């Protein structure tokens, strides 16, 4: 059966969805998005625009990092390494500490050039083979793969999911390690930027960092709206980042539970025909779409989650901030729980929003 199975897999008709190429090209013309764990917003299709036009615009929009470098050049105290400001990690460069340690293994030198630690996370900055990721004209050939930090008490600080490969993020330091106790960065794998095998080795570097303490932030009171209780269970905040765990119970959870209880089959509709044509991108063979019933079901779920469980933060300036890491799970024991990690914009009164239905204030000193 294997040979026929392989033939069937090769023959699977999976035509390119209409407009997908255009959407990708359109997105590539925009400044790079930050990594988002909750709301991955896709640009809408722009059917009338030609691919050629996109490509022309891309030549202008593709150089984001030098712009950051120039931005940092004007920031006092940011001379450590221009380009450290990364929208994915939210580093405020003034809080970074220069470090200088290096290790060579498997023919590659890894240099630890800086770090930033607080009660929420620990960020490290590395160069590999003398190259910094911020140099778009001569980028590094490798990036950090597997790595951990350990302290002298045997505590291991694992990587967090949202770090950049040249700015790996780790769990927050604890105890004496947070007060400048000796730390060891242990990298065991470098990932090639080009096709090839990961390079395994032992890059061990010792350093110290003093972690900024957590801010004293009071957990906001739970609020009840339309029969649903929204509660921030725990909150941690540094000058840069707010990390919260939340929980919802009541009517919205009951509705959500009912909504997902009876899903239609996630089958594909073999009968749908989508015409090709100008501006729609290539359409090969029959299109692949889920049944209208499942699509509608999926849309209802996402709309409901956006309305009731999608967390955002409104800064004192009125700016709406979205989590760069986090998410929520399915209802369990009558509750929906989730996490959200968001960048802060300095001290002041913020508002944590749950979808469009609930809002509570939280003061950042």
């Amino acid at each position: 059966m294997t040979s026929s199975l392989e033939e069937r897999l090769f023959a699977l008709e999976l035509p390119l969805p209409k407009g997908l190429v255009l959407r990708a090209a359109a997105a590539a013309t925009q400044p790079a998005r930050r990594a988002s764990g909750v709301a991955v917003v896709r640009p809408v299709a722009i059917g009338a625009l030609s691919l050629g036009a996109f490509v022309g615009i891309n030549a202008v929009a593709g150089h984001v990092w030098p712009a950051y470098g120039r931005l940092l050049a004007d920031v006092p105290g940011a001379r450590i390494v221009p380009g450290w400001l990364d929208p994915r990690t939210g580093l405020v460069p003034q809080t970074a500490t220069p470090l200088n340690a290096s290790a060579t293994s498997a023919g590659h030198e890894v240099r630890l050039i800086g770090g930033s630690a607080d009660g929420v996370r620990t960020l490290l900055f590395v160069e590999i083979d003398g190259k910094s990721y911020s140099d778009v004209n001569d980028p590094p050939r490798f990036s950090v793969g597997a790595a951990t930090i350990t302290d002298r008490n045997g505590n291991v600080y694992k990587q967090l999911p949202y770090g950049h490969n040249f700015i790996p993020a780790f769990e927050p330091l604890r105890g004496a390690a947070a007060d400048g106790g000796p730390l060891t960065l242990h990298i065991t794998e470098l990932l090639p930027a080009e096709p090839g095998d990961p390079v395994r080795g032992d890059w061990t570097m010792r350093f110290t960092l003093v972690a900024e303490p957590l801010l004293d932030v009071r957990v906001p009171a739970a609020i009840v709206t339309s029969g649903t209780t929204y509660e921030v269970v725990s909150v941690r905040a540094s000058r840069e980042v707010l990390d919260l765990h939340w929980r919802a119970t009541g009517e919205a959870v009951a509705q959500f539970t009912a909504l997902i209880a009876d899903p239609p089959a996630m089958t594909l509709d073999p009968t749908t025909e989508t015409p090709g044509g100008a501006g729609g991108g290539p359409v090969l063979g029959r299109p692949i779409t889920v049944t209208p019933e499942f699509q509608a079901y999926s849309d209802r779920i996402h709309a409901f989650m956006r309305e009731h469980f999608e967390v955002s933060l409104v800064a004192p300036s009125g700016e709406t901030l979205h989590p760069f890491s986090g998410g929520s799970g399915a209802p369990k024991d009558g509750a929906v729980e989730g996490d959200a990690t968001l960048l802060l914009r300095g001290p002041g009164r913020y508002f944590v929003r749950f979808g469009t239905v609930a809002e509570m204030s939280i003061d950042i000193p």
Partner: protein
Amino acid sequence: MMQQASNAIEVPERLGVAEGAPAVLTAAELCDGYAARVYRFAAMVSRGSAEAEDLAQDALERAIRRIESFDARRGSVDAWLWRIVVNAAADAGRVRKRRWLLLAKLERTRDPGDEITPRIDGAIGDDDLLEAVRRLGQRDRALIALRFGGDLDYAAVGAALGMTGAAAGVALRRALARLRRDLESTGHGRKT
């Protein structure tokens, strides 16, 4: 006719350019030549069609953004592109882990009566086969999607996943065996 990209990279002709690699790669050529295969990969490696579209779009977006990093002297477009695509898939897996958990829960709660009726003589319908692929583990899906969606040979599959071609071949055979068992268990295949 596609407009020539203004950010095309002129690669001087010299020894060492990989065979078959274009000297100039434009975003238009990238999309024309590879988008369909990238989507086939995404459709197989994702757990659902919406996620597949998201992944394919993200992978193409990344490739267009990084088109200047393509260097024909250092390898083929395939080798350059599929590393980007696989990384996009890996990132999507991390970012949406919680959503996968939700989807997995939904799939577990699905009524068995909704399953598609097996085709006559045990033949496998495209939709059945795709669903079976999507039920596999992440690594098996990646192997199958690269081989049969991306149409890559073992060496290229291995390069994209950071393993040797031989290891990729072995892993792929095991993934196919698991797919076959799954199909047999759901009445879509015949034991040999």
